[in-house]
């Protein structure tokens, strides 16, 4: 089963994945709100998931799908821990601006 028989070419998936990943990176770098930064990370993870699924479908490989499950599981755990930390930070500092959470800075 080759990608030529599909309606949507492989490269489109990959380009979408790259665009999503770049959006995640840019969001991570320029947004100041901690929750937005966190969501950007999720976006990057999902962009990678998309390319995993694409290749898995392309090559009839189930391992790519399994990898995606792992990533989703880690992302869920990360969301649980990360949100807890964000709430703790907000309670302590009354702010979610990344630039002001700099107590550990040299």
């Amino acid at each position, binding site marked *: 089963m080759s990608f030529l028989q599909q309606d949507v070419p492989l*490269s489109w998936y*990959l380009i979408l994945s*790259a665009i999503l990943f770049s959006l995640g*990176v840019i969001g991570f770098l320029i947004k100041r709100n901690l929750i937005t930064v966190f969501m950007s990370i999720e976006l990057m993870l999902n962009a990678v998931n998309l390319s995993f699924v694409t*290749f898995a479908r392309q090559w009839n*490989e189930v391992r790519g799908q399994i990898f995606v499950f792992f990533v989703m599981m880690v992302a869920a755990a990360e969301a649980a821990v990360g949100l807890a930390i964000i709430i703790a930070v907000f309670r302590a500092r009354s702010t979610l601006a*990344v630039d002001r959470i700099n107590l550990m*800075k040299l």
Partner: protein
Amino acid sequence: MNASSAFPIQLGLWLIPLLPFAGFLLNGILGCRLPRWMVTVIGLLAPLGSLLIVFNATLVAASHPGITVCKGCAYQVPSYLPNVENLGHWLAVGSLHIDFSLVFDQLSLVMLLVVTGVGFLIHVYSVGYMHSDPGYARFFSYLNLFLFFMTTLVLAGNILLMFVGWEGVGLASYLLIAFWFEKPTAAAAGKKAFVVNRIGDFGFLIAIFLILAQFGTLTFSEIAAKLAANPTFTGGVLTVICLCLLFGAAGKSAQLPLYVWLPDAMEGPTPVSALIHAATMVTAGVYMIARTHFLFDRSPAALSTVAIVGAATAIFAATIGLVQNDIKRVLAYSTISQLGYMFLACGVAAYSAAIFHLVTHAFFKALLFLCAGSVIHALGGEQDMRKMGGLRTKIPITFWTMTIAVFTIAGFPPLAAFFSKDSILYAAFLQGSGGIVLWFVGLFTALLTALYMFRLWYMTFFGESRTPDAHPHESPWSMRAPLIILALLSICGGWIGIERFAAFLAPSTGALPWAAAANPRLEIALVAFAVACAIVGWRIAHVFYLRKPERAAQLAASVPLGYDLLANKFYIDELYNSVIVKPLFVVSRYILGWVVDAAILGGLAWLLAGIANLSGMVLQRWQSGNLRSYAAWLAAAAAAVLLFVLLAGSSHGWSLTLFHPEPILKLSRISIAHLGQASH
């Protein structure tokens, strides 16, 4: 040579150096915590044990059936000597093998008896002499360390092991000269001795390298065998080797031009002066020449250099000794002068005469130093002879033993030095026309020796006491007993006679040059000359320093130039200071210190530090602590890597574009295959 293998007699030679070493470790590490009597016991048992082993070995040697060594002489030597004890391999580099081999032959037997015997007596003496010194345990540990290295030097079967002992005694000498290191002069004297000895050791080292290059072995017996197999090999490189060895020996044995450290070495405690700087260590140079005599025998030029150095040193030091006022310095110059006699004997190939004089000298010079120590002890540390006098009745045992020593060194029959000194003069006289000059120098030195020794005797023990407030007291028995034993040895030490002694030593040092054609009538005539010289020296001293003490001062005033020259030791120290030491200081301080060290090396260090500092100042801006800036750098770097792969890939011919996915697919297929392999 190979007789030893037929008679595997265990003598325990390895214990001879090791016992003092054990003493050194015990006293050196635990000495300050042990009670004083235990330090004494350890310090004395170590040399006593070595002495007993040497005695045992000597008895074994004496009880063994003898063989006749030289044709025509009646004397026999034990047939199993040399006894070689191989303790194991030390070095194996290419074809060169060096063992820890100890050789017990006639020469090392004699030397060991002197080193451990006189060494033990001086240890006993030190118990009394150093009894109130705070560094008592340290002193005994150093003395034991010295005995360890000295016996190693004597027993060594190859030059490298001898060199270990050679350097070791230098170290022990340094430690003991600078024993009272709080005193700046003592510290400086120790440093001087060490540096001057290093200069001599340089010559010794060069000689070792040359021997290695020439013979491919450093074992004495193998070198001798190779030389014996090649009877036409003379001069040339052998002369160079021998001159380098002579330079080393001159450093250790305080000969011209390296004698300057020995008078200063008198800053050490008197037992040290007696043991190291009179009886044993300074004779190591003579021992080394006798040990390597097969090399010197092949080089007449080197031999005559040895003789000239010896004769020049003998008369040179004796003249300086005439006008010194410090009792120990007189004895130091006397030691240098007597060592000159030994070198003279080596230089005329009469090695056994040199060793004979070495033995008798060890007895009477150790006695002289110990007596001087007893005098200094009695006067509470006074060393200036001008402040002594009239001690004859106050310290009678010291006086009588000193008298024996003085008459011995002056060469009166039948005391020990009479026999040894006259055998040297006789050997020199037989060396042809040049030998007669050497003989005359030796004879004149004998006169000077008698003169300065009787001067010391009269100034110390006769006349009026020049220290009215001092209360001299006789030394304790631990000091008096060694004096008496050494006095007996000084009397009897020469009675064995040079003929018998030389015949005994012949297998190690070769026969005496006149062994074949002795001339008793000539010998007696020469002896008469020598004794006459001794008596003249005595009478001159008697007139100048007892009957008319003002005459000496008048004489000194009448030739102020000559007296100044002697009193200032020919200005040799000043000469060395201005010609060698000062330029070295200038080079060190200004060229090496300022230009090389401060400017070049220091500048380089500053430059490196500056570069590190500057780059740190720039790079620290990166370490902002801001997480997002780190992430930005990470992303930028990842983008850069991706860009590089794209560009480099296109230049290498495999296009990596997103719209022609074949290469990507290929890559991912490969990576998935890898994953599959890894998971299996």
